[in-house]
């Protein structure tokens, strides 16, 4: 691509990947931001899927990443492909000289790869936004600001979710949904998938609550049935619990809590996919409870509005080092939890006898 320098709004957007995240999250969000963005191209290796999704928004479709990147009308590239392609595609989009890249999380698989991406971003001057919607959520941001510089003594990240299709279907009419249930994962894969697929939404927030530079050390990790994880870690002496249960319980319950000697911050997030406004944060102190939100914009919309500000030059792009540190934090937890989970399962196998409640 040659220099675009077309700073006129709306900015052209191209999607790499046309799956549920593109259909149920980004397209409905962009429909609310028509003054800022226009979908130009949808790329997917499945030509029929790409065409179907593109047709919904009056965009072109392609099966070729190169074609999308060569198209000057595409100014912002959104990487919504399977995780394994993220790094390669982000680098390619940077080298193509696009104005900005939005990459779904995780944007790399290890810190070295992330550093390489950051180097290309610096070299090309192309800003990268990682689709960590909770970090943009106005409810969280207001609650965290009110939290101030309190010393955190405990953190609880708890996620209870039904399967994604429940909320995908509230967000859009999905096409090309992967069929069947994924095969049962081995413990190590289940715990890594849990950290990098679910916990990762809140780990940047956890890191913000912790003292700067805190390194996580997992002390216990378990796989929960039918799906989920329970991970206990400490970082800079602060205990942190991460747990998630995925089941057919319709009631989503997504909470981040921070405990201090004189306060509790509780943030209730909406389920993924839906455009249901921001999280609701409550800061509880001896004086009472202060509530923040729900604000109008979902984390997704705030994410895109932030990107629009970057394009307009009114907002600073995310610090690349922060993105790398967030990713490294998550990867350290995933790696350490995988090491621990083997022990925990062995212990469970040795001691399991159901005590009979009922």
């Amino acid at each position, binding site marked *: 691509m040659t220099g675009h320098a077309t700073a006129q709004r709306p900015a052209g957007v191209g999607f790499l990947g046309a799956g549920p995240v593109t259909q149920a999250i980004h397209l409905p969000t962009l429909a609310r931001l028509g003054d800022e963005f226009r979908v130009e191209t949808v790329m997917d290796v499945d030509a029929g899927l790409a065409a179907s999704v593109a047709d919904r928004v009056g965009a072109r479709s392609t099966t070729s990443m190169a074609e999308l990147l060569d198209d000057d009308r595409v100014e912002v590239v959104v990487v919504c492909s399977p995780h394994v392609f993220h790094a390669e595609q982000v680098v390619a989009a940077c080298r193509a000289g696009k104005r900005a890249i939005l990459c779904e999380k995780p944007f790399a698989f290890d810190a070295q790869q992330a550093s390489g991406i950051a180097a290309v971003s610096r070299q090309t001057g192309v800003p990268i936004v990682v689709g960590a919607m909770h970090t943009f959520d106005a409810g969280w941001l207001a609650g965290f600001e009110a939290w101030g510089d309190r010393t955190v*003594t*405990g953190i*609880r990240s*708890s996620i*209870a979710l039904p399967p994604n299709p429940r909320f995908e279907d509230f967000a859009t009419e999905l096409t090309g949904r992967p069929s069947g249930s994924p095969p049962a994962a081995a413990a190590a894969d289940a715990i890594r998938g849990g950290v990098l697929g679910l916990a990762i939404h809140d780990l940047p927030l956890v890191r913000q609550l912790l003292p700067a530079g805190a390194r996580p050390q997992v*002390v*216990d990790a*378990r796989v*929960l*049935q*039918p799906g*989920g994880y*329970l991970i*206990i870690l*400490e970082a800079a*002496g*602060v*205990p942190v*619990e991460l*747990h998630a*249960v995925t*089941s*057919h*319980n*319709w*009631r989503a319950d997504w909470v981040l809590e921070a*405990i*201090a*000697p*004189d*306060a*509790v911050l509780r943030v209730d997030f909406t389920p993924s996919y839906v455009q249901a406004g921001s999280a609701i944060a409550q800061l*509880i*102190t*001896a004086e009472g409870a202060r509530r923040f939100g729900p604000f109008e914009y979902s984390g997704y919309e705030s994410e895109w509005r932030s990107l629009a500000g970057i394009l307009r030059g009114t907002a600073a792009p995310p610090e690349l080092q922060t993105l790398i540190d967030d990713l490294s934090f998550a990867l350290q937890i995933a790696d350490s939890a995988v090491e621990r989970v083997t022990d925990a399962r062995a212990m469970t196998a040795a*001691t399991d*006898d*159901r*005590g*009979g*409640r*009922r």
Partner: protein
Amino acid sequence: MNGLTVAADSDALQPGAIAAALASLPMTLRATSGPHAALRAIGGGAGWCERAAAALSEGARGVLVARPTAVDVAQLSALAEHDAPIVLDTRWRHNPAVARVPELLAALDGGVSLFEAHAYVADEGSLDDAMRDLALLAQAAGGQMRHVSTVQRSVGRLVVHGQVGGDALHAVVDVTSVGSGTAWLRALGASGGVQLMVPDAGTARAARVTVTDPGGHTLLPLLHESAHRNAWRRLAADVQQGSPASDIDDLRIVTAAFAGEV
């Protein structure tokens, strides 16, 4: 005058909020300073097992122990031999809402993925005591406790894992001045869940029991009765019906589980 006579040791008065509890049960209980009270309240400080045993030996028909501290399994086994009603007035166990939970858990389809128990206390010195009280609450709601191990301990938090009723237990006590004295349980099942939020033992602010199932999310009727008051009603009923309370056995199981014996 009707009602069972009650004599309270001075060290039981404050932790058990004895005066308030007795005043709220004027037909059932009657305070006395005499030596032959039917019921005796003792404080739960060091030596409470021996003092409870002595009270029974001296003729008390039932004993309430206010905020019992840690003892070992052998002491509890010895006390259980008295075969008399003894109620342990711990922080949350006797809130009347707790009794509703077992049948709700039994009705959950597909078992429990995670049984979570959490409490806030104001004083870091009481982390272990609070965890034991939390465990008694969890056991009363969820079933027998086993295989308990301490996973994490810091100045502000204690975490234990184990099994309750055969399900994975994750129990946490946090030190914070906010919401101190509150505990909650949450059992997440395959298609629903049960949650119980219990206030401090001294308040009649209602515990909240909520049930989620495929049909919706239901808040059970609120019972504005403190755990302290209900503990006394329990003791009176056990004495009148001649049925020894199971509290000592419950604490023995929890103590054994924390000691790694079951």
